[in-house]
């Protein structure tokens, strides 16, 4: 089978009430500049909207920004919905202000990486580049 390398497709969005999109737009641009196709869903997304969009767009990964303090519920709900739809092969990663004590639990639930304040853009890009494409 001939394989033609297709760019990674990454959904980038923000769940919860927080209304700032500067950080997430910078991430989207850095990933675009690394040669990826970024489906940008914008702000105020519910986990249901994110998962539905991810499946319609056949993305390799979902990158979520969560700043509202409800990170546990939101991430867990995204993972649960992916599982329900037999789509838990989609990698989930995220960023935000996430307290230390919550991190093991989120990793155990299936969040592949969590980027907290202080992470460099290069760290994020390197992580995403290493994701295995699904098709």
């Amino acid at each position, binding site marked *: 089978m001939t394989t033609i390398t*297709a760019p990674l497709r990454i959904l980038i969005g923000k769940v919860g009430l927080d209304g700032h999109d500067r950080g997430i737009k910078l991430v989207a641009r850095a990933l*675009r500049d690394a040669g*990826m*196709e970024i*489906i940008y869903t914008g702000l105020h997304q519910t986990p249901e909207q994110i998962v539905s969009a991810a*499946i*319609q767009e056949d993305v390799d990964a979902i990158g979520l920004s969560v700043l509202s303090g409800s990170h546990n519920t939101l991430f867990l709900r995204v993972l649960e919905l992916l599982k329900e739809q037999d*789509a838990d092969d989609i990698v989930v990663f995220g960023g935000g202000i996430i307290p230390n004590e919550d991190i093991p639990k989120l990793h155990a639930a299936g969040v592949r990486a969590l980027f907290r304040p202080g992470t460099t853009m290069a760290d994020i890009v390197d992580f995403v580049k290493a994701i295995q494409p699904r098709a």
Partner: protein
Amino acid sequence: MLSSERSIRKEMASPDGLAEHVKAGRVRAISRTITLLEAGNPMGREILRQLGDSGGRSHAIGITGYPGAGKSTLIDRLITAYRQQDKTVGVLAVDMSSPFTGGAILGDRIRMQDHALDKGVYVHSLATRGQRGGVSAATRDAVLVLDTAGFDIVLVETVGVGQGEWDIAEVAKTVVVVVAPGLGDEIQAMKAGILEVAHIVVVNKADHDGAETTLQHLRDWHPCVLRTVAVKGEGIPELIAAIAHHQQADPLPRHVSSQTIRQSLH
């Protein structure tokens, strides 16, 4: 029509399985098939072959025009209107890939996210991946896939500013060209190009200054020019009516239709 997604992952490994699930309108299979076609994976062509001519019911509508003219916002409103008519809607939103990195930010979807949970609506973004013009190499295949999946309406958004217009006319039966007020010399350029393939011209952002002038200029050159304010939903019923009228008045597509593309596959 978009049935349960549960446990179709295994069956998606084979072209037969994917083709069956596409025909049944399953979202994951539709999306994966488009991915395979875009990647030039031979499995994609095999699926298309198996889909054969089981579609043919969809009305494909191209929405093209200048960057930022309001195409995606207009599509958002068209989706709402078609859903009120109980029609299912598939959207293909094409954006340019960066010629430098091959990457792309596909942002059309933001304007349509209110429909993300409506099972009768499907939105898929495509990057041009180096293809000249506004229509990606895989777009015509993706139109066929959505047609076979049974969507009543297939909306294709492309940026058309002098190169891609002809391509959109090949995949869409009805071509709507969207412009914003304030066009000056551009109208001269449009006469030989975008206006020739347009069945309907929309002056969107009609709440902006200069809308009347732009309308009048365009009406000198095109028989069907409408005004809309997409953000407020103004002019949408008229646009829906004009699209329906075009479909009825011109039952045989003027350009290469998805039907002809399908025949060329055999």
